[in-house]
């Protein structure tokens, strides 16, 4: 067994909170640079240029990319040969979030209860997803997820016979209803299959894939491409001002499901699609 002190996890999470909020990923910058070439709308190009300038200012001056520094979503892939020592893992993660959000002057957006709505003051609790995997490493993915695009996300229990066309209609309907609210150009995570709750998680996981990386399954890779083209025919454009580039990419994650079910979830992410990863 490899022993890892949970304090190490706290320190890494704290650093990752800052890193993710100040640095837009290279894949997203590349996607936006490509979008700038393809956008026909003058105001749309102006918006994409603002977004690229924003990324430069953010990492240079240490000002968060967006004032919505998000829910602190954390994915932990824990190797089954790792023994965690020195305290409670969940608490170690929350401590990291608390320290990171304080140290880097990030916004504290969490409220204690959905109806009482008192701000917890430190952006905890984090939303943590654990996965036990073979090996002796811990993979941590930190995702600050904005509320604006989260609000525009949807899930629908389709009928199996609705199939691919039902999924396409639902994705287009969701993106169209979101309009400018989700801060286009967006990244679209689509979860297909599983149960009600795993489907939504698949959609979120789909957002973590590098922008240019397509699904490893040829059929889904093709569906991603067709969906992205269809979304970009909607005309919403950067910030909804009208234009060709509404989405930078569509990513699908699929999973086995029940004979009666075709759950489909669409998790939208704004252009500031932030996520960082470390392997300990």
């Amino acid at each position: 067994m490899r022993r890892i002190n949970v304090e190490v996890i706290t320190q890494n999470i704290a650093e990752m909170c800052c890193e993710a909020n100040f640095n837009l990923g290279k894949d997203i910058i590349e996607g936006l640079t490509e979008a700038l070439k393809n956008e026909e709308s003058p105001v749309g190009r102006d918006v994409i240029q603002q977004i690229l300038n924003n990324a430069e200012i953010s990492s240079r001056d240490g000002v968060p990319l967006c004032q919505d520094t998000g829910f602190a979503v954390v994915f932990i892939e824990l190797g089954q040969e790792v023994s965690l020592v020195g305290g409670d893992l969940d608490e170690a993660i929350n401590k990291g979030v608390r320290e990171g959000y304080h140290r880097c002057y990030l916004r504290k957006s969490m409220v204690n209860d959905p109806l009482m709505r008192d701000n917890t003051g430190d952006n905890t609790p984090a939303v943590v997803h654990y996965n036990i995997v073979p090996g002796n490493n811990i993979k941590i993915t930190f995702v600050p997820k904005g509320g604006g695009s989260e609000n525009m996300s949807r899930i629908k229990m389709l009928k199996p016979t609705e199939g691919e066309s039902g999924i396409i209609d639902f994705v287009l309907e969701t993106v169209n209803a979101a309009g400018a609210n989700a801060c286009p150009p967006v990244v679209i995570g689509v979860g297909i299959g599983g149960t009600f709750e795993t489907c939504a998680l698949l959609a979120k996981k789909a957002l973590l894939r590098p922008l240019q990386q397509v699904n490893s399954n040829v059929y889904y890779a093709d569906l991603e491409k067709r969906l992205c083209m269809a979304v970009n025919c909607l005309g919403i454009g950067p910030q909804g001002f009208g234009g060709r580039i509404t989405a930078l990419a569509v990513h699908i994650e699929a999973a086995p499901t029940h004979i009666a079910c075709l759950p489909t979830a669409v998790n939208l992410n704004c252009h500031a699609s932030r996520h960082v990863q470390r392997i300990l």
Partner: protein
Amino acid sequence: MSGMKVSLPLTEQMIHDLRCGDQLLLSGFLYTARDAAHKRLVESLSKNGKLPVELKGQVIYYAGPTPAPPGRVIGSAGPTTSQRMDSMTIPLLEYGVKGLIGKGSRSEEVKKALVQYKAVYLAATGGAGALLAQRIKSAEIVAYEDLGPEAIYKLEVQEFPVVVINDINGNDLYEAGQKAYKRLI
């Protein structure tokens, strides 16, 4: 960033001349207010018709900035989704607020009220909070400090970039823009 330079508060003539799609660079004062502050503003208006800050003729910015690090005026300060303020907007327009800045479309009721009360809805680029913060020269909390990021800040801005979404003639850039670029699949 291109745009016509406009001083705040907006004059009656300026509001009259603005058209959906116009790109503006605003200089002057803005007042931030988002969900929780709106709730209190509207409660205050219905109780005694008064507000803790004079907003007559002013522009409200739907924003909840990140805390200011030492040596800076403000943290990241982009717009939030306007839709959440729709149900609380009309009393403020009735009171005399002349401009709203946010992102995303407004309800039909708000659009009608903008025409009726001769006010404009503008959008700033969502997710460009670091860039927009550079255009903010001073920030001061003027009400509801206990709301933290949702407090009302008085911001002095210089050449703050926005786009006119809804003008006083009932035009809507989100509708017109999408229509112009929509393609049949």
